[in-house]
């Protein structure tokens, strides 16, 4: 009889806390969104499964001696996984549109207002009972507005590891919701004429420009904002591998093997931060709310900057492309294209939106560097 009791006590069902059960449901929910609704499946499938595995009672897979816990320790605590993903993003990104029209960097800058507005929102929530965000917490939450997964994970792992799970889930979920969140704001802020502006074709960009670009960006970053150097450095390293033209093998490794392997590991590791005591809290609700706010504000300020540039250039810029400044590459640029086509069936804005889109990646990396420098310890 004794042995049966020992057996019963080793069963999951005898040890399941209600919170673990709920978090396993959350994990299933994320997997559902990823597969059925195609919400950023590359990240949300591993994150959801990581949440499932880490909330299994007794097994301790997400704990310090469990597999996922060890992966988290090696790859996320050190910051290495998001940086390697950023290298892959750099190797996958064509910065040509940005080089051809550098002024679109301003759209990427304007959209970062979503980040800083959210920072204030997070701090303001402290006036409500149940919220107690530090400046570090608020900064990590605010970066959701950057609409860039690896940047969000990198900053959260440095400033607020406890909130990492909720922040990553919010960041990737809202990135997936971009086609729903952005269009109404874009339409509300622009006139019919503005949306129908046909932009001038981009000039071709030479190979030398493409090779110099990552070096120039890195050196500027090194001189002005070294705290953003790991992120921007790895992004630009990946891009240099891509554009150098002489290291095809390495470029392919960065674009495929490394990013795929790291994505699996990173997803599982992030999922292990979806534990009941951290996730099933009032704060998560706040984070989800602020994340949505961040995307809306970023979209709005991007479009408004688009309108300013529209006027300043005498109507050459279609203000819609400002919405792509939030990053969420390449989803936001596609949304711009779609909203543009609604107005004029022959006006393809995709290439024009790629400039602000990748500028948004740089912009949020810069913002992350600022927050690290001023708020980090």
């Amino acid at each position, binding site marked *: 009889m004794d042995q049966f009791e020992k057996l019963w006590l080793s069963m999951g069902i005898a040890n399941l806390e209600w919170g673990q059960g709920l978090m396993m449901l959350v994990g299933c929910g994320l997997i559902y969104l990823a597969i059925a609704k195609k919400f950023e499946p590359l990240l949300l499938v591993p994150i959801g499964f990581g949440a499932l595995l880490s909330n299994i009672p007794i097994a301790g897979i997400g704990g310090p001696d469990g597999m996922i816990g060890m992966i988290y320790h090696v790859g996320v605590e050190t910051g290495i996984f998001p940086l390697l993903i950023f290298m892959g993003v750099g190797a996958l990104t*064509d910065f*040509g549109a*940005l*080089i051809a029209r*550098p*002024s679109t*960097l*301003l759209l*990427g*800058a*304007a959209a*970062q*207002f979503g*980040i*800083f*507005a959210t*920072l*204030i929102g*997070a*701090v*303001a929530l*402290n*006036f409500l009972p149940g919220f107690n965000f530090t*400046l570090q917490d*608020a*900064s990590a939450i605010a970066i959701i507005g950057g609409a860039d997964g690896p940047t969000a994970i990198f900053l959260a792992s440095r400033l607020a590891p406890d909130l990492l799970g909720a922040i990553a889930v919010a960041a990737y979920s809202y990135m997936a919701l971009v086609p729903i969140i952005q269009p109404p704001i874009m339409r509300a802020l622009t006139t019919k004429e503005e949306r129908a502006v046909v932009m001038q074709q981009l*000039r*071709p*960009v*030479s*190979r*030398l*420009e*493409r090779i*110099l*670009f990552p070096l*120039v*960006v890195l050196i*500027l*970053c090194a001189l*002005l*904002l070294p705290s953003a150097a790991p992120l921007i450095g790895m992004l630009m390293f990946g891009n240099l591998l*891509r*554009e150098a*033209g002489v290291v*095809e093998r390495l*470029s*392919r490794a960065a674009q*495929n093997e490394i990013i795929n392997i790291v994505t699996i590991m990173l997803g599982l590791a992030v999922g292990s931060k979806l534990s009941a005591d951290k996730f099933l809290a009032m704060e998560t609700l706040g984070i989800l709310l602020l994340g949505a706010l961040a995307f809306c504000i970023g979209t709005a300020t991007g479009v408004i900057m688009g309108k300013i540039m529209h006027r300043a250039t005498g109507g050459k810029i279609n203000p819609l492309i400002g919405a792509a400044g939030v990053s969420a590459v390449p989803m936001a640029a596609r949304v711009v294209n779609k909203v543009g086509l609604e107005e004029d069936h022959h006006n393809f804005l995709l290439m024009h939106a790629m400039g602000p889109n990748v*500028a948004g990646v*740089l*912009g949020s990396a*810069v*913002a992350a560097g*600022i*927050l690290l420098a*001023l*708020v980090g310890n």
Partner: protein
Amino acid sequence: MTETELLLESLSLMAIGMGIVFGFLLMLVGILRGMSAFALKIAPAEPHPAAAPAALHTAGSEPDDLVAVITAAVARYRRHH
């Protein structure tokens, strides 16, 4: 820190932060323009020099010219029948 102090601090963060973001990216606009001018001076632009090869090294692209060959063959075949 009280909630209010925190709020003030975050307002100042916003001001500085947006300032640096804009400052950084504005400076980058200028530098990129200079870079392009310099680059086009020492190596005048070819039409899409890097884009074309980039498109070529995607996996599975090797059969591309095969497709071309076949398309041409099939087209010619149809023309003659």
